């Protein structure tokens, strides 16, 4: 296995899929000449040329909509949003066109588009640049939503997303771009909708995704060593489709649940999970389902305080202890 950063793993997925299918094209702000605002696409312009790697103007509604239209005619566009936070100005194109066009045409039209970019807080860029819209996106049938936590998952899931015939929203993380992990040398396609048990345990299930997986794993180590609590960490990896079966299997093993999400709590992914767990595993629960979310306010700028607004290992630890109390 090679050790790659999360950034390099995404780049490798893009490069492999661009090579495999000439209809794959990468478009976005600064993706070509500048090699990407976060250097994800470094070297791709040189390798694939300006027809395949395309700089767009700052015009998200225009270029996302253009990508949706091109996908209807058989192009497989991968559209980079410099920040997923900018989805709001392209939201009509995403929810009314990408999500709905198959339905409204009675199944005659497909929209095989991938929209990708980072969606996270923790970089002190304030409320406008710190949105985590996976719950908002997943609220729209027709759309798939992926939030990878590791380099291996990012690569394997992005390759599947690009080959998917439905629109896939792929949410990365600027803080994870530099995180290293092992990635298989041979081609790996990780199916969308398959959760991954990142750590096995017996006393508490933490259901989580994205960067919160890393915080949960750190907290699980402390819980094991200092509190004699054995934690199972279930990484959803994909929000929609949702692998609830892996979650329920873990709940049946531990009987206690903590949901950890970098997400404002109202109508979040965790809200949906909690509903499904109580509905489908009520008799397995030894206590109420707990949740740790982003503290419910717009993202604060102040650097040391933003750390406290988001899930972090200490907050996960505290919430986990409450869940097993």
């Amino acid at each position, binding site marked *: 296995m090679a050790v790659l950063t999360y950034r390099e793993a995404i780049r490798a997925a893009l490069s492999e899929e661009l090579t495999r299918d000439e209809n794959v094209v990468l478009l976005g702000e600064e993706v070509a000449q500048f090699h990407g605002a976060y250097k994800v696409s470094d070297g791709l312009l040189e390798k694939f040329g300006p027809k395949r790697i395309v700089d767009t103007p700052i015009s998200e509604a225009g270029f996302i909509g253009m990508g949706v239209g091109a*996908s*209807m005619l058989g192009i497989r566009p991968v559209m980079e949003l410099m920040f997923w936070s900018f989805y709001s100005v392209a939201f009509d194109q995403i929810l009314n066109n990408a999500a709905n066009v198959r339905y409204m*045409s*009675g199944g005659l039209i497909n929209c095989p588009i991938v929209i990708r970019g980072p969606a996270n807080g923790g970089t002190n860029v304030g409320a406008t640049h710190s949105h985590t819209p996976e719950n908002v996106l997943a609220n729209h049938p027709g759309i798939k939503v992926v939030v990878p936590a590791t380099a291996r998952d990012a690569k394997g899931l992005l390759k*599947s997303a690009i080959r998917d015939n439905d629109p896939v929203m792929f949410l990365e993380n600027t803080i994870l771009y530099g995180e290293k992990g092992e990635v298989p040398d041979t081609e790996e396609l990780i199916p969308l909708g398959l959760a991954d048990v990142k750590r096995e345990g017996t006393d508490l299930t933490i259901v989580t995704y994205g960067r919160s997986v890393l915080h949960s794993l750190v907290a699980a180590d402390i819980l094991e060593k200092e509190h004699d609590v054995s934690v199972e960490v279930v990484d959803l990896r994909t929000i929609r489709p949702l692998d609830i079966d892996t979650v329920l299997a873990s709940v049946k093993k531990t009987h206690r649940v903590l949901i950890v999400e970098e997400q404002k709590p109202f109508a979040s992914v965790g809200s949906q999970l909690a509903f499904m767990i109580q509905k489908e595993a009520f008799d397995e629960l030894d206590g109420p389902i707990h949740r740790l979310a982003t503290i419910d306010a717009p993202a604060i700028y102040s650097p040391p305080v933003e750390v406290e607004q988001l899930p972090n290992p200490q907050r996960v630890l505290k919430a986990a202890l409450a869940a097993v109390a």
Partner: protein
Amino acid sequence: MSKKAASTIETKDDAVPACGASAQAPVNANLPKEAKVELYRKMVRIRRFEERSLRAYQAKKIGGFLHLYIGQEAVAVGCCSLMGANDHVITAYRDHGHAMAVGMDTKPLMAELYGKVTGCSKGKGGSMHYFAPSLNYWGGHGIVGGQIPLGTGLAYALKYKGLKGAAMAFMGDGAVNQGAVHEAYNLAALWNLPVIFVVENNGYSMDTSQDRSSAGPGLAQRAEAYGMNWGTCFGHDVYEVRATMDKFLTLAREQCKPAVVEIDTYRYRGHSVADPDNTYRTKEQIEEYRRTKDPIQVFQNILMKDGVLTDALVEQIDTEAKAEADLAADFAEASPYPTPDDIQRDVYWESDNPDQRASKGRLFFE
């Protein structure tokens, strides 16, 4: 309605042309007689289909909105009659005329209005959302201006694949102030995409006149800010529509030159038929247009004068169009509704093709 025709690609007489003045344009003069009759027939069929749908709407057979194209038929018919194998069309919610102009059958169109499973979108789209990708027709879109980036994407795909075709992205005059439209203009001009933005100017964005909603001297001229070609023409004369659009389409197909073409037209009915239209215009205004510029009457006069149409043929075409509309309504009436089980079909490609599904997990939730 009395603005001068203008264009960046051709200087022409500034006076309002007499109806039929474009008959000698090669794209019209070279038309066989049957093709001229077919243009006329298509406009009549659209008119009769929509009149029949209005009666069904008034009888409460149709839900939601019904945005009728009556009065504007020459625009869609003229434009779509120029389509080649690689030309594509997308439009907004006033989409019945375009659907029929590209060749969609009236039975599934009417059934869609009735919300029946035999509708062109299986009863899932309704009046505003007609699609026929096999006829290069991509809808039928409900959000004002939202379809314009999609149309630009169709042009992008054509160019990417090296196909010599053009996309026509239709919008109403109310769409020109939407941001997405201007973003699409910029992309099309920046990347030389073969797209014609067709502004069907019927004078009113919903119930608000152009004077009260759009700044600047004209709607097409806004193309100049993006270095795009533009033109205007009179939409009550199908020959004029064809003559104007032919030039811009040729430039798009041959040279990947985008353009904005503003076509003056007029709708006789309210924005949607449920909207009263007595607050912003007079009955006399509508009647005056109907009397002097009705696109079907205008073309009938031209073709009668040329000996292409006869009284008997006019009568026959009208009778057949009415019968076709009645048959479509009968078909819609007799068709079943979709079932509740159909609600979750056609959402994801993967859930509709389970044997080819690659993903795991639940796609739908309770």
